[in-house]
């Protein structure tokens, strides 16, 4: 194994398929992990909380990436699926007294099951047309929580989510919760990456790029679209449950329809069709949101006559402008820049 990728020749097919191919890659990966797990030491308070939110968003974003970026099933119900997972876990821990670590996978599976039920009708649509039936998934979730199961979910009053406890160790501080989220995000991210580089992922991309050819090549489109839907919503559910037990109190207000738009919009910003795109998307979204939260009150003070309108509208405007700018100048997203960087690194020290 050499330090630089240029001039490395694979002698085994498993090397050919590997992600970490050189010593430098391994060193960088380990450095990244060390960096990740030392974040709570030098980030405190509000910023650490931002880190946790980024992690939970990222997990949900992986799911959105599998659905939108890999299978081109544009979903506008993602916040609903995130919320569904959050509620499954909240109900299980609140009413049945389940441990969070049993409720968490159930949240994922619950959201996946909900996704499967919605999916049986939506996967008959293709591309943009999927938007409408998936929006319905969002509203069905609202209806289920606020009307049908009001007795258990307490409707709009919201429900308490217990702090996760593992063998008597409570994840009750940001410092502790960050590690929980970080570990899960890394595991789920690697799992997603593994999925998309094996048979299933190729089938997803095949359906995205040419569903007719995919079918003739023996890929059962209906089955694989449903599978993508279920996997995407599994991720959404896990992300939602993790988030819910961090904020410890949820109601449906926390899963606005606008968030579903942001999931897709920031996927475009991050880059469709790559797991790194989802990573960039989640970071970009939450950091930008945080920046807006920081700047908006200051602007509001300067322009005092606007009566608080700046605070309420600046997020919307910023997100919209950023998405539009990316669509115009870099429609393939940040991940594309990352790819270009990697390509030039692969050839280094040569130009081409």
């Amino acid at each position, binding site marked *: 194994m050499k330090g630089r990728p240029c001039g490395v020749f694979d002698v085994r097919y498993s090397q050919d398929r590997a992600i970490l191919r050189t010593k430098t890659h391994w060193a960088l990966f380990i450095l990244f992990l060390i960096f990740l797990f030392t974040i709570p030491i030098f980030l405190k308070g509000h910023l650490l909380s931002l880190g946790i939110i980024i992690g939970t968003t990222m997990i949900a974003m992986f799911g959105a990436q599998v659905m939108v970026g890999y299978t081109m099933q544009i979903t506008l119900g993602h916040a609903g699926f995130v919320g569904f997972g959050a509620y499954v876990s909240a109900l299980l821990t609140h009413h049945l007294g389940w441990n969070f670590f049993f409720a968490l996978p159930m949240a994922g599976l619950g959201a996946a099951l909900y996704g499967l039920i919605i999916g049986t009708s939506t996967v008959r649509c293709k591309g943009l047309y999927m938007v409408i039936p998936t929006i319905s998934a969002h509203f069905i979730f609202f209806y289920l929580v606020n009307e049908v199961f009001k007795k258990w979910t307490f409707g709009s009053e919201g429900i308490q989510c217990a702090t996760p406890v593992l063998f008597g160790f409570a994840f009750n501080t940001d410092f502790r919760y960050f590690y929980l989220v970080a570990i899960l995000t890394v595991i789920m991210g690697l799992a997603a990456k593994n999925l998309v580089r094996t048979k299933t992922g190729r089938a997803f991309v095949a359906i995205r790029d040419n569903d007719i050819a*995919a079918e003739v090549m023996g890929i059962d489109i209906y089955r694989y679209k449903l599978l993508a839907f279920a996997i995407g919503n599994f991720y959404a559910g896990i992300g939602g449950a993790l988030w819910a037990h961090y904020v410890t109190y949820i109601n449906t207000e926390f899963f606005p329809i606008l968030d579903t738009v942001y999931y897709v919009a920031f996927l475009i910003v991050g880059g469709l069709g790559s797991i790194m795109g989802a990573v960039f998307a989640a970071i970009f979204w939450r950091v930008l949101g945080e920046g807006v939260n920081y700047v908006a009150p200051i602007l509001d003070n300067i322009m005092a006559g606007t009566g608080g309108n700046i605070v309420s509208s600046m997020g919307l405007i910023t997100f919209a402008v950023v998405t539009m700018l990316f669509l115009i100048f870099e429609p393939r997203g940040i991940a594309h820049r990352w790819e270009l960087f990697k390509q030039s690194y692969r050839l280094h020290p040569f130009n081409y």
Partner: protein
Amino acid sequence: MQENRVILSLEDIYLSFGGVQALAGVNIDIKKDEILALIGPNGSGKTSILNSISGFYRPQKGNIYLKGKRINNIKPSKIAAMGVARTFQNLALYRGLSTVDNILSGRHIMMKQSFLSGFLYFGPALKTEVEHRRQVEYIMDFLELEPYRHQHVGVLPYGVRKRVELGRALAMEPKVLLLDEPMAGMNMEEKEDMARYVLDIREAKWETVIKESPAIVLVEHEMDVVMGIAERVVALDWGKKIAEGTPDEIKNNQAVIKAYLGEEEY
């Protein structure tokens, strides 16, 4: 003896779209060791036949038998799994994937791997990936695609993409290979290459990837190619079979000449 050699047979196929009668009672037998060419003017139903075989179109009447099994109302993906592979007239590659991954996706039906093992990657998933990656390398070797191994197919030249598509079809280890205008839009050199590959598919001593050479159904407008490589030619016009025979017989068949050149004296 004669019966056993037939791998795919179309019996009295009728296919119509509204008022348009695309196929009107077509009978074709495809033997398992031949290159059969389908020719005919535009709109004569060549591609409709291929689409009926691969399950896209559902003929209103008639039977299609693959190795004696009726495949009329089976899903296209199931038909593919039974050993029918095809290429498309207009390229239908997966643009987001590299050459390797495109051809690997052709091995989808052979890969016994659940998505759960895909999450883990190391273990059974990696084992099957590597095993099939090796087969793909043989195919890339055969089609001389090595220089393009890790390039996205979107950036490849047209002739190469056609070859990738052929590779993807070959990766399925087909019993019947349907080629829809493999030479369309190619220059002379690429055509010669492609003709050689088509012949090689039949004649190569496959030991690694394909156990048995597939029967090839070739739809082609390029008459030089058809007459050069096909062993049997079926000529179609207005959804009907107008002639069948060896290339030499077809060349001199009055009905075929009439279909192509019209009624006038010449």
